[in-house]
């Protein structure tokens, strides 16, 4: 009777041991799965964070590029500098040198008006053929005051170029003379 009981007890203990081992294996399986799951979630979070960072930067660059395009187009058709002839239509891609000579003064006197048009930007016209004159008609950069003067604080800059003809009516009477130059529009953010 006792032996029978003993055998039963041993059998029961063996079974318990086997079950415990099985449970331990299952537990470690579950832990591994949960660990992998959290690792995947962590990867997801890191990926999303990086993606949103890049996406934000791209959005900012896109906005700056759009502003550069707008500013360049606005400056190409500025009545203050574009070539005109009486009441006739203006000439495309052409700036009048005589107007350009006065533009700097006009722009600096009405800086608030032009700031609404161009915001933080720099507009330069450079002659390439035959001479090499330069006109900076608008220049407004983000600056902050420091001890020794001012310091530029813009982060990004976008340049847009257009090649233009520069009409010079001052030299010869009765004949239009066209030089060649380019318009450079820099916008800052």
């Amino acid at each position, binding site marked *: 009777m006792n032996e029978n009981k003993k055998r039963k007890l041993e059998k029961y203990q063996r079974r318990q041991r086997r079950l415990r081992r099985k449970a331990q294996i299952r537990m470690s399986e579950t832990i591994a799965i949960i660990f992998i799951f959290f690792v995947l979630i962590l990867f997801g979070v890191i990926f999303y964070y990086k993606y949103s960072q890049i996406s934000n930067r791209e959005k900012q660059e*896109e906005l700056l590029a*759009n502003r*550069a395009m707008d500013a*360049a187009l606005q400056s190409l058709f500025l009545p203050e500098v574009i070539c005109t002839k009486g009441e006739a239509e203006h000439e495309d*891609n052409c700036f009048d040198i005589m107007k350009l000579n006065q533009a700097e003064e006009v722009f600096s006197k009405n800086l608030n008006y032009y700031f609404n048009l161009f915001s933080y930007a720099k507009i330069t016209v450079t002659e390439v053929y035959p001479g090499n004159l330069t006109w900076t008609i608008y220049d407004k950069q983000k600056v902050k005051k420091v001890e020794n003067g001012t310091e530029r604080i813009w982060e990004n800059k976008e340049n847009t*170029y257009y090649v*233009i003809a520069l009409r010079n009516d001052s030299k*010869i009477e009765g004949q*239009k*003379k066209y030089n060649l130059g380019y318009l450079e529009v820099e916008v800052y953010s």
Partner: protein
Amino acid sequence: MIAKDKSAHTKKLRFLGVPPNKSAHTKNQRFLVMLRSRKAQMEMIGLVVIVILITLGMLFMATFALKDNDGKKIFTRKGLAYSTISAVMKTTINDPDCSESFSGQVYPQVGKDLIEDCAYYYQDNLVEGDHSLYRCGNKQTCIFLEETISEILNETLGGWNKNYEFKLQLIESLEADPLQIMLIKSGKGGCWKKEKDGSGLFPLHTDQGTVEGELSLCD
């Protein structure tokens, strides 16, 4: 035959971890077999879900990697090409030698005067001589034009690291093949890249036929 089937079944049960027993066909063991096969199915589904998720993630990444936001680039390339060719055509040559055959000072325009002159004498000059009406820089017009336009493009577009190709073609009649009278390429070897935009054709009507100018830009 039946014995073979039975032994196969026993093997299957062993494989699934069910101890071979005389009463292997009892309800309990059938239930165990079903439970284990269902578990295997569920694990397969889990695996499939993971594969689908990874594939979706990769597709998502690929979409963002391949997304090219070059609307501004195309716009500025086209605008720049058009403005460049338009300005070059308008430019007048600042050289008193150009007009020695005329009385008084004349500043010939690239588009209106010099290209026409080049087209007019181009075929004669292929045979012999270096005739032209204008003698800018004491050179035949086509040669002078090529040098000047090349210099201008190199100073502007070349300075901004743009690849370009400037082409002038003479079309004498509808039947005749276009004759290429000028081809200027950037220092880096013209436009062989994928991202290419052009100014569009700039036709000039001359006595010799129509001269078509085009400037292509690429990044």
